[in-house]
């Protein structure tokens, strides 16, 4: 686990301090991990399983916009105001994860600039990757010819 994703990007001594704040949690398949609009006060790094990120659509079932899997960061809305979840999250399969209290981590970062930098670099990289993926999917590459082109 410490060799992949977030944990691989943080220098070892800083990583140990971060890991001291983490706790091992499990979610059964179908569990709602957080709801869109609620307070973003935690984040997770998935160990096993997959989580669907969804968007509330009035009058319809939530629309899944992306799934994330083992080694990936679940939740970044805690980084900046308004610190509310932009999406909902549901376990697609049984999930094991490291859970972190965002306030505790932010307090630790205030006194550890190297950890702060490594953590934010990773979070920004994750956001960038998901933005690129979303933009690529906007092109509707697999759709009927011309369906993704601007009108």
């Amino acid at each position: 686990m410490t060799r992949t994703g977030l944990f691989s990007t943080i220098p070892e001594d800083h990583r140990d301090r971060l890991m001291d704040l983490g706790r091992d949690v499990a979610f059964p398949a179908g569990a709602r991990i957080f709801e869109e609009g609620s307070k973003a006060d935690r984040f997770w790094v998935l160990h096993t399983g997959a989580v669907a990120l969804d968007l509330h659509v009035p009058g319809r079932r939530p629309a899944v916009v992306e799934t994330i899997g083992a080694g990936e960061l679940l939740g970044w809305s805690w980084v900046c105001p308004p610190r509310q979840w932009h999406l909902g999250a549901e376990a697609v399969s049984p999930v094991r994860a490291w859970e972190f209290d965002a306030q505790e981590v932010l307090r630790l970062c205030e006194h550890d600039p190297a950890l702060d930098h490594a953590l934010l670099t990773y979070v920004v990289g994750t956001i960038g990757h998901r933005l690129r993926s979303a933009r690529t999917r906007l092109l509707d590459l697999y759709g009927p010819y011309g369906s993704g082109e601007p009108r």
Partner: protein
Amino acid sequence: MTAIPLPYRVVETRPETADTVTVRLEPVHEALPPFAPGRFAMVYAFGVGEAPVSVAGILPDGGLLHTVRAAGAVSRALCALAPGAVVGMRGPFGTGWDLPLAAGDDLLVVAGGIGLAPLRPLVQAVLAAPQGHGRLNVLIGARTPDDLLYRGELDGWARPYCGITVDRPGAGWRGRVGVVTTLLDEALFSPAGTTAFVCGPEIMIRATARDLLHRGLAPDRILVSLERNMHCATGHCGHCQLGPLLLCRDGPVVGYERAEPLLSVREL
């Protein structure tokens, strides 16, 4: 390879999705020379026109499977064929997937949309002779769950991994949602000893190849299938030119060390 189309009869059609059909063809008289995975035929719908179609299945009796998506006049005509109809066939053309290059390697087969069709015979060849290679990983991206090809076969392709992700999930979909490269985190391979076979829209090919290079695959171990406007299929008309390559002859399968600089040129 023949310059004159040989007659092939449609013996079976199988709808794959709402707009895609797999057609099984058998020679009426003489058969074309043997096909290999990744190569293509020029299929002539009489009275409509001719289109390049990759081989999606190579049958022991000389029959061929072609998976066709209704996108233009010729492909719509091919999708509408009924058993008993006759088409003209030329081929085989182009370069195929170089499976001997990957001897002993872990294999990454990465497909986007209809790009799974040219990769299907490659997967079948690996499954038929698994001792020749390492781990087989098949990664499939589709628009929606309803757009998945060969649904009845996919479970048997997990040797050890077959992952599927879609752009737009429908109700009841419990699988992955996102771009196909996200599946690379789940695949089981050693980058230094892996060969990748990639087919799909060119943006997807470039994104996949970039990710594979980042993970340590050598460019010449990333084989990609490119598509241009093929007409003659014999390297004479130039419609399928991509820089120095005529893709009907020098492709469609090329190593990424050749494809990368060409794909980065605007409007080439």
